[in-house]
């Protein structure tokens, strides 16, 4: 038993707590009540938060712990008629920097930079940069620090483009900044291992358009630009923090025209993340993206490459079009100069864009270039005269090398006298005088009416955007309406040989050649391939068999020696033989007044085989030197020859064997 302790100086017994001593002290009781009330408040609050606000907290927890990622669906591929890829997709690897995670680092750097300037007494000298400048320096320094890490890992020496970085901060702060793009597999593999998982710099993948044949059919395929990833139907988590990857949108060519079809359906996933933001697999919810539909074009890659290679050899601007005579499907749609479509992925640089502009390569000469058809138009004049009855195939006229119309003398195409010529010879030798007379006899309205019957006054309606509407078939009423002047005889003779005011596109002339081949007046061109497409049937030309035979005989002799204007088709010293292939063609050389002088344009329309036409071709080459004789026979024929050669090789090739093209 403990001995009673002596009272303390304050008079209280030792060994007792204040509570024991003052159990009934009103002041202590007050505190008891206060504490009890506080506990009740806390318990009520806890119950309120845990029972009544459970949904709110669960929602907040969900928003904090889950992330939503939306990816665009892969774009559909563009294939040629045999299923070969013209435009596909490939992954692109880049290193991106998450700017959100750099705020503290940039702030620290700002302070450090300001302190350094002050220590250097620059402030006193008035050289202290402004707050904005210090911020820009700090941003560039921090970003360069991460870029140096990447450089060290993959052995590069890249520098941050400060202007580009400022632009990104000003306009796209919420999006990651791309440090390096288009990484090679070995580079991104090194970065995967070298960059910490929670680093603001991370490897990123995206899909970009890939063109295995670079510039092949560039104007027909078109290109894509950056677009929205799209929305996913009935995909929850709209309130979650969403990372939306950029998609693509067609900007030109078939990519633009069939954008809805090519565009894939976006997919996405909702992931739970750890406190560092790392994704925890598997995703809580996932909607797989769906690839867009593939588009199969009527183009034949082999023919297209052959045409483009030969066009490029001319080192002049030009276009070549080839059609399937029966269906109107476009086998070749080539235009030079053009551009490498791969330079558009991921984005076109300003320097490349300037180069394309300087070369005039944006211009789609096959569907936008309007040219005087020159002597190729004589075929139409012949049809018009034969149908009007003013031209007799057997009748001969005398060509002495020129013809006077009014006060002006019009010469024959080569200035030589052709002597006595009938329709076949006139076509074979491209005698202007013959067609001057034929034109004057039938009159301009007849020629114009026939040209309109062949739809040469309107766009073809091919499935491409931007086909020109500037084609022109003139007649006296048009001239009076436009200039207020009357139609002169000189205008008629010019029209009869495809000069003067008439303007057509290479695609139109290819359609015209295909129509002549089928003995019909219209060929609707199709860029999309349909294996079940029926042969086209339109109004006939109205020529009787004898007239048609004369026309075809003339066109066939154009390709033959000794007088045909496209006789190099048969000259083995110039072009490889096309054994067994009967060709019908018409060359043309049109003139155009240019600020530099008179420029020649080389033309050729052709089809083959003559007795069972399958393929029709039109080629137009722009001369680039004033006064230079850029004739259709010399410049356009080799391009058409390349197309026919490739076509013939494919036709004669046993199934399954690849075709080999040779230049020359």
């Amino acid at each position: 038993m403990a001995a009673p302790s002596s009272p303390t100086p304050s008079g209280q017994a030792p060994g007792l707590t204040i509570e024991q001593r003052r159990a009934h002290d009103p002041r202590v009781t007050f505190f008891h009540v206060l504490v009890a009330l506080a506990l009740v408040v806390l318990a009520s609050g806890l119950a309120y938060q845990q029972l009544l606000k459970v949904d709110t907290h669960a929602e907040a927890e969900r928003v904090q712990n889950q992330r939503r990622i939306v990816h665009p669906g892969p774009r559909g591929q563009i294939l040629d008629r045999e299923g070969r890829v013209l435009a596909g997709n490939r992954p692109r690897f880049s290193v991106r920097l998450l700017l959100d995670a750099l705020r503290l680092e940039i702030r620290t750097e700002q302070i450090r930079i300001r302190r350094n300037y002050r220590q250097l007494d620059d402030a006193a000298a008035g050289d202290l940069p402004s707050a904005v400048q210090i911020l820009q320096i700090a941003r560039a320094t921090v970003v360069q620090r991460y870029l140096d890490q990447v450089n060290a890992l993959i052995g590069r020496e890249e520098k941050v483009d400060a202007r580009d970085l400022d632009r990104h901060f000003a306009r796209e702060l919420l999006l990651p900044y791309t440090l390096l793009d288009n990484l090679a597999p070995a580079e991104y593999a090194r970065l995967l291992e070298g960059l910490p998982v929670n680093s603001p710099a991370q490897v990123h993948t995206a899909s970009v358009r890939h063109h295995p044949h670079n510039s092949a059919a560039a104007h027909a395929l078109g290109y894509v630009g950056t677009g929205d990833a799209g929305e996913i139907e009935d995909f929850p988590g709209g309130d979650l923090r969403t990372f939306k990857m950029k998609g693509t949108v067609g900007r030109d060519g078939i990519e633009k025209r069939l954008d809805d079809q090519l565009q894939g359906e976006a997919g996405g996933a909702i992931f739970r993340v750890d406190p560092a933001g790392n994704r925890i697999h598997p995703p809580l919810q996932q909607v797989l993206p769906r690839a867009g539909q593939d588009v199969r074009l009527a183009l034949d890659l082999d023919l297209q490459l052959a045409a483009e290679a030969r066009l490029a050899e001319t080192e002049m601007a030009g276009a070549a079009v080839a059609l399937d005579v029966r269906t109107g499907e476009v086998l070749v749609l080539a235009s030079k100069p053009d551009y490498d479509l791969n330079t558009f992925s991921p984005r076109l640089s300003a320097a490349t864009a300037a180069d394309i502009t300087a070369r005039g390569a944006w211009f789609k000469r096959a569907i936008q270039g309007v040219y005087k058809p020159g002597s190729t138009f004589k075929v139409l004049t012949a049809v018009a005269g034969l149908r009007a009855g003013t031209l007799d195939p057997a009748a001969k006229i005398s060509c002495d090398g020129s013809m006077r119309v009014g006060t002006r003398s019009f010469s024959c195409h080569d200035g030589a006298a052709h002597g006595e010529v009938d329709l076949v010879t006139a076509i074979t030798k491209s005698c202007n005088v013959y067609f001057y007379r034929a034109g004057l006899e039938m009159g301009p309205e007849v020629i114009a009416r026939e040209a309109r019957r062949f739809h040469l006054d309107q766009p073809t309606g091919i499935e491409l955007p931007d086909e020109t509407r500037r084609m022109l078939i003139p007649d006296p009423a048009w001239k009076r309406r436009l200039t207020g002047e009357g139609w002169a005889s000189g205008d008629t003779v010019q029209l009869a040989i495809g000069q003067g005011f008439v303007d057509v596109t290479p695609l139109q002339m290819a359609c015209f050649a295909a129509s002549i081949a089928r003995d019909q007046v219209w060929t609707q061109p199709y860029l999309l391939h349909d294996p079940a497409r029926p042969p086209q049937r339109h109004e006939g030309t109205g020529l009787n068999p004898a007239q048609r035979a004369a026309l075809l005989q003339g066109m066939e002799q154009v390709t033959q020696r000794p007088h045909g204007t496209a006789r190099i088709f048969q000259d083995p010293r110039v072009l490889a033989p096309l054994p067994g292939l009967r060709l019908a063609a018409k060359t043309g050389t049109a003139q155009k007044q240019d600020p530099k002088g008179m420029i020649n344009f080389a033309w050729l329309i052709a089809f083959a085989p003559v007795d069972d036409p399958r393929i029709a071709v039109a080629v137009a080459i722009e001369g680039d030197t004033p006064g230079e004789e850029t004739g259709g026979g010399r410049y356009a024929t080799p391009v058409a020859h390349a197309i026919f050669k490739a076509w013939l090789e494919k036709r004669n090739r046993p199934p399954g064997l690849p075709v080999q093209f040779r230049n020359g």
Partner: protein
Amino acid sequence: MPFKRISQANPLLTLGLIVAAWLLLPTAVKTVARASFFELTAPVTLAASRVRDLQDFWALRARSRTELIEAGRDLARVNASFELAVQQNGELRAEVARLEELLRLSPLRDHRLEHARVARRDFSGWWQRIVIRKGRDHEIPVGAPVVFSGGVVGRVSEVHATTAVVELISSPTMRLAGVVEGDTRPISFQGGVNPTLAPPRGVVELMPLDIIASPAVPKRLVTAGFGGVFPPGLTLGTIIRADLASDGLFKSGEVALDPRLGTLTEVSVLVPVAPASAPVRATP
């Protein structure tokens, strides 16, 4: 009374003063203190590990002679098969050297194997690490690959004088470039969020679409060797699932890792051998 009440708060005041002092200490002092902590506690870890070894030793001492004889016989059999394997390896090495010479391939960066005993395992949902009984004294560098008979164990993340911390490949903060055996296209491998007692798993991303893997048709994932840290061809695990990823460009999937990762007792650190021209650091 007021004086006495303040004196009762002395412990709190002391704690507050210590916290304030820690906050005000220069960063260098704090770094040294933090590093010293690991060095000071290392003997405890090592002692515990050695006690466990001793415990195992005495447990083995309790075995009967018959059991030991049987174990010795089994061991002799295993040794014989290993001797055969060593001979075969020697022949294969010679063949590889001959082919490298023939194809003029540059020799791979050589490594020295530093065997180390596992002192401690530190597993949680967020990281998976082991502490090994070798460190700076054995020239183990940060980032060195660590392997065992089943493939890759992980990478050295911290090095102390006598211990080193190894981050396992099952840890979610571990990422490597791998390739499917027989393929050359790099794939991203990352450790998964693994519950403590569950079989270890990882995830693969950026896997080409033409690679098919399932539990029935698993694919072996090996190191790519592109990163410059891990030599190529070391086993990471087995891809047992591959599904189209949400971006539609690649597949992502699941990798089953070697279940022995959770019970490792002995590992080997691949210490890069310095080139002949480089000065060799003297060991203390």
